[in-house]
């Protein structure tokens, strides 16, 4: 099988799992962003922005967005960490064989402890790295947070 055909095949089979993954996390992020944005929009500095004569779009873009993103960054980072280790349910449902998730699933079924230990170590490293990245992103989003 030529290379581009192989890649095309992979992409083709990745479509549904990716869509499932996207829908699930979109819902989570939308809800978090919504409640966070509602909190931010009731802040005094939003009233100041309104009094300054800014349009609703400018208020959202320039005053609300950065403040409202803060809680979302943490959640995205943790999820990103788990993504490295694959999505166990989704890979199992779609029989995604080259995935780390299905490898973990298989190892659980076969009681293959060394592989599981390796997988857990990988997950731990990924989540911790992602969290570190999130904390560093915080310093960029929120000047009140500083690296020391």
């Amino acid at each position, binding site marked *: 099988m030529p290379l581009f055909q192989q890649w095309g095949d992979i992409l083709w089979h990745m479509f549904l799992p990716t869509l499932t993954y996207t829908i699930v996390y979109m819902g989570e992020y939308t809800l978090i962003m919504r409640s966070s944005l509602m909190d931010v929009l009731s*802040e*005094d*500095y939003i*009233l*100041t*922005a*309104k*009094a*300054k*004569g*800014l*349009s609703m779009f*400018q208020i959202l873009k*320039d*005053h609300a967005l*950065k*403040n409202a993103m803060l809680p979302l960054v943490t959640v995205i980072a943790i999820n990103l960490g788990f993504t490295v280790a694959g999505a166990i349910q989704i890979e199992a449902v779609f029989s995604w064989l080259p995935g780390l998730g299905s490898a973990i699933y298989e190892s659980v079924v076969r009681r293959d402890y060394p592989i599981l230990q390796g997988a857990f170590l990988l997950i731990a490293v990924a989540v911790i790295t992602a969290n570190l990245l999130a904390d560093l992103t915080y310093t960029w*989003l*929120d*000047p*009140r947070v500083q690296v020391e």
Partner: protein
Amino acid sequence: MLALLRLLPAAGQIVNGQVYFKGRDLTLISDDELNKVRWSGISIVFQGAMNALNPVRTVGDQIAEAIVTHVTGFPKENITARVTELLDLVGIAADHRDHFPHQYSGGMRQRAMIAMALACNPQVIIADEPTTALDVMIQAQIPELLDNLRKRLGLAVIFVTHDLGVVAEMCDKVLVMYSGVTAEYADVDVIYNNPRHPYTQELLKAFPDLTKPKKKLSSIPGYPPRLDALPPGRRFAPRCPAVFDRRRSEQPELHSIGMDGHVASCHLVTEADRSRL
């Protein structure tokens, strides 16, 4: 105060009354038109200096934003200079320009807020209890600063406060409000020397006088009414020392006394004035 610029929260509505600014009723013009008046015509200094500035943007940036929004064609290279000039006007050094609000003290934030309010050369500044969240030393500085700027820049300042001392010192005209409606409106001298409305009279009694011998300050018994459960008739009637039957039943009209625009809303004042004629 928020109603003047239609900044009330969504649940609040302006059911009657007009807000005239330069011949236009601000309660009727479109949102786009109103956004042009906001800040360039009328700007506001809010009471919570702590939270009125956006924590994730520098103070200079937020002041510049007001200029960019309202002054079309302001040369970009001059904006920094203008922001520095504004900060200098309120006594903040230029090197604080690129600092964030959390690096400012409470008084500095309120002064930065005033600098921001001046950014587009407005004709009117509304100072809504600007000293509430500040300590006593700074509380004295803010009205003084506003008063100086008012004289230097030829602004009109609407100063909302509970502090009768500040009012006596810096105001020309005083509007005494009780429970959302006008009780009395007059020149500052008239309010202090010849108050006609019982609420104004009681309010002044509750304020210590340096020159007179020490005595216990009086207070007005009771509490202000909840605005969603107003007493029938005159709003001040349940707490008024001079209350009589008619006051309980009817809300009086604003009645003008004398020639200097002195206005009071009280049946007693209206009747006393009529009997004199």
